[in-house]
């Protein structure tokens, strides 16, 4: 655990992914009445993580080799039904996604905090 702190890295990536997702959702909601605007979404966090040791999958060899935790979330078209003015944002769907994002962010921060607590305890500080 102490050699490369995978769990902290994973929690940090999840929090940063949630941040990206939140900004995309805010952009969609701000443009909910803009004619011709296409809703955007971010690729799932699960798609970024392989099941081996929680290592991040890289889109290019050489990426993420060290301790860097670049955010690989890609912004893609969100699909959805088109309104007569060409807008594809659904406020309800965006609110659902905002709730999920909040949950993921809270989860990441809780994991981070308790891992830090364990570390503190193990070095004898309380």
């Amino acid at each position, binding site marked *: 655990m102490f050699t490369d702190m995978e769990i902290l890295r994973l929690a940090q990536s999840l*929090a*940063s992914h*949630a*941040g*990206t997702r*939140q*900004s995309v*959702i*805010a*952009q969609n*909601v*701000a*443009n*909910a*009445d*803009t*004619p011709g*605007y296409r809703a955007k979404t971010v690729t799932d966090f699960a798609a970024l993580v392989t099941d081996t040791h929680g290592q991040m999958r890289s889109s290019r060899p050489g990426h993420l080799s060290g301790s860097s935790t670049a955010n690989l979330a890609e912004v893609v078209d969100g699909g959805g039904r088109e309104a007569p003015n060409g807008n594809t944002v659904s*406020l309800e769907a*965006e*609110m659902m996604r*905002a709730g999920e*994002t*909040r949950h993921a*962010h*809270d989860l990441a*921060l809780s994991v*981070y*905090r308790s891992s*830090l607590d364990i570390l503190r305890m193990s070095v004898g500080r309380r």
Partner: protein
Amino acid sequence: MSDLMKALTFAGSGMEAQASRLRHTTENIANADTPGYRRKITSFESVLNGMPGAGEVRTGRVSLDQTDLERIYDPSHPLSDDTGHHDGSNVDLVIEIADAREAQRSYEANLRLFDQARQMTSSLLDLLRR
């Protein structure tokens, strides 16, 4: 963190645009009985990638509704012509109220996301406070 700050900016631009839409709707309602008044229509456009503030929404030019003005029969009115008619406004109160309600709904959605991004930022900063 910078993404969350961007989320705050986006939500803020959305609130600003909806507020300006609500202002034009209010102007229309206030002038519903003004002779010759044409209702104002707010347009929204998103800032293109590569420009400062990309992805934000802003209000474009205000356009005037070009549908026919209502003809009102009132021979005693100073603006009346030979037939006793004068031009009213083309404001339909039902449309304006519906527009105002939609602006309010969008404003609330933006406000909620602003609040959520703010809470996410502060819980992130709480990690440092221990």
